[in-house]
């Protein structure tokens, strides 16, 4: 079993050879190690082992990897999500119309065809494997991109002075011209459409009360009115006596 850097001794021969191959030793350590290599044949065999050792990167299929590892996010077609897209679609269809497109180039990243890695692409364990994979699989190219630019305003030419002559509706007998009122005979030219603010709907819809219900409501109101007077009386704001209604008696 190969030793690892985590559990190996700092001065062990294996770690020194590994770091020597990697070029991580300073000059004093390199001289000391080369002096030992000259006198120790077993250490030279071990160095040959470390030099022949390399970490070969596996040929990962990134597309397959993304498909297998990344969980696609399912769109939630509920409530505001669906409504928002409908709104955007409706707004787009209503307000905008297609116009001639302008061509421009924009850099995009597309995956390159899979190839066998060269010797120069071999990385060691110290190099970031993801960066190496990305660098080796992606190629920077430019493609033509089509962008839709929609105008903010739409100009429509219309002659406002032309008369609007309603076409006769088949099956409906039109009234003779002399029956029309003078207001109705005015040509429909240059009429400005005024915005009419709609009246707010009443909260409680008025309904027809029967006479009995009306009398009951009247009695309730009268009772409340007399109660208010009685309250004022008890507060001392009115004379002590409760007089008869002098308008009737």
């Amino acid at each position: 079993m190969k030793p690892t850097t985590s559990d190996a001794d700092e001065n062990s021969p294996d770690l020194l050879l590994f770091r020597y191959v990697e070029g991580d030793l300073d000059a004093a350590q390199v001289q000391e190690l080369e002096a030992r290599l000259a006198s120790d044949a077993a250490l030279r065999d071990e160095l040959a082992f470390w030099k022949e050792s390399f970490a070969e990167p596996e040929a990962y299929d990134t597309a397959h990897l993304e498909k297998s590892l990344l969980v696609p996010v399912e769109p939630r077609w509920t409530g505001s999500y669906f409504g928002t897209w409908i709104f955007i679609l409706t707004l787009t269809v209503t307000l905008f119309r297609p116009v001639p497109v302008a061509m421009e180039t924009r850099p995009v990243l597309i995956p390159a065809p899979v190839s066998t890695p060269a010797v120069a692409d071999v990385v060691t364990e110290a190099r970031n494997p993801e960066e190496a994979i990305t660098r080796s699989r992606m190629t920077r190219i430019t493609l033509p991109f089509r962008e839709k630019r929609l105008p903010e305003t739409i100009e429509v030419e219309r002659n406002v002075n032309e008369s609007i002559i309603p076409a006769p509706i088949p099956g409906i007998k039109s009234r003779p011209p002399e029956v029309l009122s003078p207001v109705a005979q005015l040509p429909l030219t240059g009429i400005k459409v005024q915005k009419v603010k709609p009246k707010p709907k009443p909260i409680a819809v008025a309904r027809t009360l029967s006479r009995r219900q009306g009398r009951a409501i009247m009695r309730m109101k009268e009772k409340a009115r007399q109660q208010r007077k009685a309250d004022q009386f008890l507060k001392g704001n009115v004379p002590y006596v409760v007089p008869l209604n002098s308008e009737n008696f």
Partner: protein
Amino acid sequence: MRTFLKAGLVWSGILLSFACYGQVIPLGALPMQYNPAFAGEAGGPRFNFNLGLLTASRFRHNEYNLNTSYDQFIPAIRSGVGFSAGYFTSSFPYSSSSEGYKFSVAVAPKFSLKGKYTISPSLDLTYGSSATSWNPRPGTAKPLNLSGYHLLSRAAVLINSRKWYIGYSVDIPLHNTYQYYRYRLFGRSDISPERFNSYWQFGYTFQRSSESKFSFTPQLVFLTGTDRYNRYSRNSFRYFAPEAFSLNFRYGKFIWGANNAGFHLGMQTERVRVMVSNGFGRRGLVTSDGLGSDAYTGNLSFRYMLKQSRW
């Protein structure tokens, strides 16, 4: 224009009253007529006046009466105090004539219930004087003159709200020299020691709300008691009969209807009421008094509230 209408109405009432005759006082014209507990009932000072005339051309009979009353509520003693004064004269040419006056004072403590009702007991004291000159055979004999005074007390109770009232009063005869003489002369008196008089009085206002213009207010007075026909009668009898009534309709300021003195018409506000009544006979529409079909009654009633109630 409104002033002219008011003046014309008052003047027409005065003329009608003098042209007609009346002894019957319309119910409501004098609040303390049957029940002294009405003293101070209005909450403020109140002045009432009634002028009545009666004529029966068949008997060439004329009667006049003039009555006033004043009452007010005194907060310091939480009681109503009322004063009344009246005068009347009656004449049958060549046969008899009489006249009289009376004064009365009433005290009515007020007790309020929940600010909606008032209960008021009351006590009244009346002093009256009467004089009659009777000549059974005019021109041939010396007329008989009879005069006297009477002292009468009346206990009463009244329960009322803004819309209705119920009152009850009992006469308590204290002293009556006039009736004593009359009792000696004719053997029958209007107020005998055996006689027991009491009055039930009711009133109610039919009105959709207190702010409605239209209202209908019936009022009724029942006289109930016991009496004997004369001093020779052994058994007394009970009686229960309508004494006075009023059916008053009001729309806005105008009032009309009928009462015990006849049909009435006038105007009424919260402070002022002017009413003219015209009817038939001494008993008005209730009963006949044998004065004939041409007997006629007229009354002019006036009321003024000096200080308006805050209700």
